[in-house]
């Protein structure tokens, strides 16, 4: 097994969740790297969708913006925002990938403010398309560093809905049935959600870390899946594609 860093581990673990033929709504950064890796490594028919209108591109290089011309390079369609969002609303998008400043045990995400909304300590960009993706795609995936300042008991502001206050809350609010958070992939672990309580739980831990390490970097009590396994390491082929084709300038994976 070749040497790899934790960002590469995180991206490879994320990419494996995207099966061939699935549709995924994605932004820039690590989620985009994971999506490109999946398309090149094992899911050639992955339908990649960008909120500004790019549909099913064959990404030549990593986009800088979710609306730059890479996002519809050799695409099947250069559409618009309504086309993309309505494709998600219609139920044709399996996954979305999100980031955010804070996430809580129900997978609610904050990308709006730290502190009180009326007098914020820090103002962030806001929803953008995140709430739209998280409300309407079938399964939400999040890629973010494991850090107790990010994994908090209660987010300051629910920008994007996770399971809101718990089981049944999404449906009660009016969101579509059977949607919601699915995986959280970090530099230390892959987490999912307990089917009953809808709370975040550890499912696999990356080599070199323990459950306690993950818990220590999580600001709430993390549940355990019935069987917590070691995350499979990146394969040599995955690393080659990631380093040579996906991110040759190492913008995301670092040095």
């Amino acid at each position, binding site marked *: 097994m070749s040497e790899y860093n934790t960002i590469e581990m995180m991206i490879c673990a994320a990419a494996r969740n995207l099966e061939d033929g699935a549709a995924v709504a994605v932004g820039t950064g690590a989620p985009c790297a994971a999506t490109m890796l999946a398309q090149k490594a094992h899911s050639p028919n992955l339908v990649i969708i960008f909120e500004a209108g790019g549909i099913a591109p064959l990404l030549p290089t990593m986009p800088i913006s979710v609306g730059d011309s890479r996002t519809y390079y050799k695409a099947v369609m250069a559409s618009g925002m*309504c086309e993309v969002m309505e494709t998600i609303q219609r139920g044709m998008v399996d996954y979305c990938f999100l980031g955010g400043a804070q996430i809580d045990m129900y997978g609610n995400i904050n990308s709006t403010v730290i502190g009180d909304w009326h007098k*914020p300590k820090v103002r962030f960009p806001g929803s953008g398309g995140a709430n739209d993706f998280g409300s309407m795609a079938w399964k939400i995936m999040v890629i973010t560093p494991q850090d107790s300042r990010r994994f908090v008991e209660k987010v300051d*502001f629910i920008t994007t809905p996770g399971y809101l206050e718990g089981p049944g809350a999404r449906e009660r609010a009016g969101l579509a049935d059977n949607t919601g958070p699915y995986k959280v992939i970090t530099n230390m672990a892959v987490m999912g959600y307990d089917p009953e309580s809808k709370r975040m739980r550890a499912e696999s831990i990356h080599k070199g870390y323990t459950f306690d390490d993950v818990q220590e970097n999580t600001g709430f009590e993390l549940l355990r899946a019935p069987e917590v396994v070691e995350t499979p390491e990146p394969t040599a082929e995955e690393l080659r594609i990631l380093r040579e084709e996906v991110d040759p300038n190492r913008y995301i994976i670092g040095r």
Partner: protein
Amino acid sequence: MFEVIAEGEGPLFMDPDADKAREYFRSKKRALVSKVMTVSEAVGKFVHDGEYLAIGGFGANRIPTAVCHEIVRQRKKNMAFAGHTSTHDFQILAAGEVFNRCDIAYIIGLEARGLSTNARRYMESGKIESCEWTNYAMACRLKAAAAGVSFMPARNIMGTDTFKYSAAKVVKCPFTGENYVIYPALWPDVSAIHVHEADIYGNCRIKGISIADLELARASKHLIITTERLISEEEIRSDPTATVIPYYLVDAVCEVPYGSYPGNMPYEYFSDEDHLRLWLNVEKDPEEFKQFLEKYIYRMRDFNQYLELCGGIERINQLRAVENLIDLNGRG
């Protein structure tokens, strides 16, 4: 009448009344007359203090940079702004302190490039009245306006704080009993969109993604078009399938080659990442940023002069190579 289940507490900056909008559009001219003018004339004529402004494109992709600069240069104030798909355009308008009300879907950030220190300072100053939305929510508001109806239903946002601080409502569907969020129509007073080709009357062609510009063009009371190049009416009529904005929506047509710079223009030139980084870096020191704005915006006669200052055609040629994935130092 729908049963209202929940209401956001945010302010509604524009009247969603469809009949008032119809009255306005009834009076909008349908005559086929030339609307060609300079950006300075267009902004002077159609952008007014206190009005509601929206900018087309996607932040640093196919944006009407010349119009944004001119609005700042003419020191327009107290406007309301649609912070929708906005990045570098927002950064420019925040630098000019152009608006004091903001509908927020995405602001302050320049996506993967980072956050604008100055725009953030402006939004945290307490001077800006704001309302939260999402990208699709704002697109729905424009879509409702474009369709001539006062609201549009959707299935996002419900149950979140984004909804709580919006001016949307949740209602029960009279057919199924399901909850739906409904978004009020938004008819901006004035918008600007950058396109690839237009004729002198305002018939426009766009290549690549349309983002929310087709809806925006139809929703706007006044529309300023900047175009990479003017083409003849004959050419427009030779391929009507290619027209995405018809002339009667348009009030001004300004020919501005490279007009999305430093943003990306699909199939023409890529974004100037060095110049965008310069903006982000220089903003960290307010004094230095003031001088930067003097140099790059206030002292400029027009967009062409700004483009020259940034490297002119030589720089554009480099960005053209980037756009077309040509490695100028390549092995061939």
